[in-house]
């Protein structure tokens, strides 16, 4: 097994993208889970559908829709462009693609974590003078940490494998937006470099196993510190 410098770049980029996508989604996923678990409001079903949508649509479609939204003519794209921000074709686009695709998995895990919090603990914090935001950060956040970690590891793993949405939104530019799956795609589309494709697959597997282990480790640690 040998890796070219380009492969190494792709691996580093993949890790960077997966990491950034996870970090970016965490606050949003946490907020979405909180809304779904602790709040009752109109349009909750809509939120649930929206959150779960990326799961159902093929990533290619998601990528295409994102391109329409964030592109030159998309309303969000125009907004960002007027602020001097160009996302398409940069590694940031890869981050956004991964983030959207992995979001439902993240929210589902955090929800499960939150659903096991005793609501009286939250109430207790409110009567002790914490505003809802304070209570969210000082009680709900630490107590749903297990779900957050599970969700993050799931999302990280999913991001490492994200292909369809990324190639559309970010392009397949070696050294800039070419993540491991895109590099594998490149290799695999030429019969002469199947071996290279397989080495990258192997790297991918090794990373995800490492993530799984890290997750087990962290969640055991949290079990211990919460005395569960």
């Amino acid at each position, binding site marked *: 097994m040998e890796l070219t410098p380009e492969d190494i770049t792709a691996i580093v980029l993949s890790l960077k993208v997966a990491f950034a996508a996870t970090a970016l989604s965490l606050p949003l996923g946490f907020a979405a889970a909180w809304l779904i678990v602790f709040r009752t409001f109109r349009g909750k079903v809509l939120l649930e559908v929206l959150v779960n949508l990326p799961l159902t649509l093929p990533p290619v479609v998601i990528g295409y829709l994102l*391109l329409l939204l964030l592109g*030159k003519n998309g309303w969000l794209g125009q907004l960002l462009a007027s602020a001097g921000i*160009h996302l*398409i074709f940069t590694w940031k686009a890869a981050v956004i693609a991964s983030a959207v695709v992995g979001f439902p998995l993240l929210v589902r895990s955090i929800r499960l974590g939150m659903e096991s919090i005793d609501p009286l603990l939250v109430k207790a914090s409110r009567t002790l003078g914490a505003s809802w935001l304070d209570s969210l950060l000082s009680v709900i956040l630490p107590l749903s940490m297990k779900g957050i970690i599970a969700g993050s590891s799931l999302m990280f793993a999913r991001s490492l494998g994200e292909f369809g949405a990324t190639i*559309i939104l970010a*392009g397949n530019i070696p050294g800039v937006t070419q993540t491991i799956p895109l590099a594998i795609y*490149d290799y695999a*589309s030429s019969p002469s470099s199947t071996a290279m494709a397989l080495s990258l697959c192997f790297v991918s597997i090794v990373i995800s196993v490492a993530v799984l282990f890290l997750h087990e480790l962290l969640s055991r640690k949290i079990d211990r510190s919460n005395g569960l």
Partner: protein
Amino acid sequence: NLSVAASLKEVINELCASYSAKHPGALFVKNFGGSGTLAGQIENGAPADLFIAANTEWMDHLNSKKLIAGPSIKTFAYNSLVFTGATSKKVTSMKDILSLDKIAIGSPKSVPAGEYAMAAMTKAGIAGKLSGKLVMAKDVRECLMYAELGEVDGGFVYRTDALLAKKAKILFVVPQNLYPRVVYPMAVTAKAAQNEEAKAFLAYLQGDEAGAVLSKFGFLLK
């Protein structure tokens, strides 16, 4: 910034390398993908200066939207359709493929090579008899992969792709009279119309040196 059809990856990489060697200041950012994907990206503001497509359809589409510097549209290269496979059966002409079990072609709706292959089969009068045997692939490279792995007896692919294969051999070349010419158009995008470097590279791609490289990879120059 280049947006290049994925099937041209190897040849473009080599051309860029040799250009860079002569013009040390030139820096390439290459994006490889399906022609439709690339066109969609350009339509939505992707920072591409030069667009090389695998068919004229998407080039025309962009041109009609004034995203391409119209006058700069040139032909990058031509290609030809071949039938390749690792089968032990004797296959030397369009008629012979009737004896095969499975044949890979690109999905005619989304893959130009598939469209050409379909046209060739129709013209040869065998399309109707093959309908159950065709396997539609996502792109030419997938066709080749199926052929290489022996999942199909053979497939219609471009000559350039067929030359990359190890196991699959070119069994016959599809007669040019059966299908429209395979053209790779290239153009500078509207945005880069004033970009001298882009124009210079475009000119280089039309030159003799580029021609030699293209021939090496199996492309036809006219």
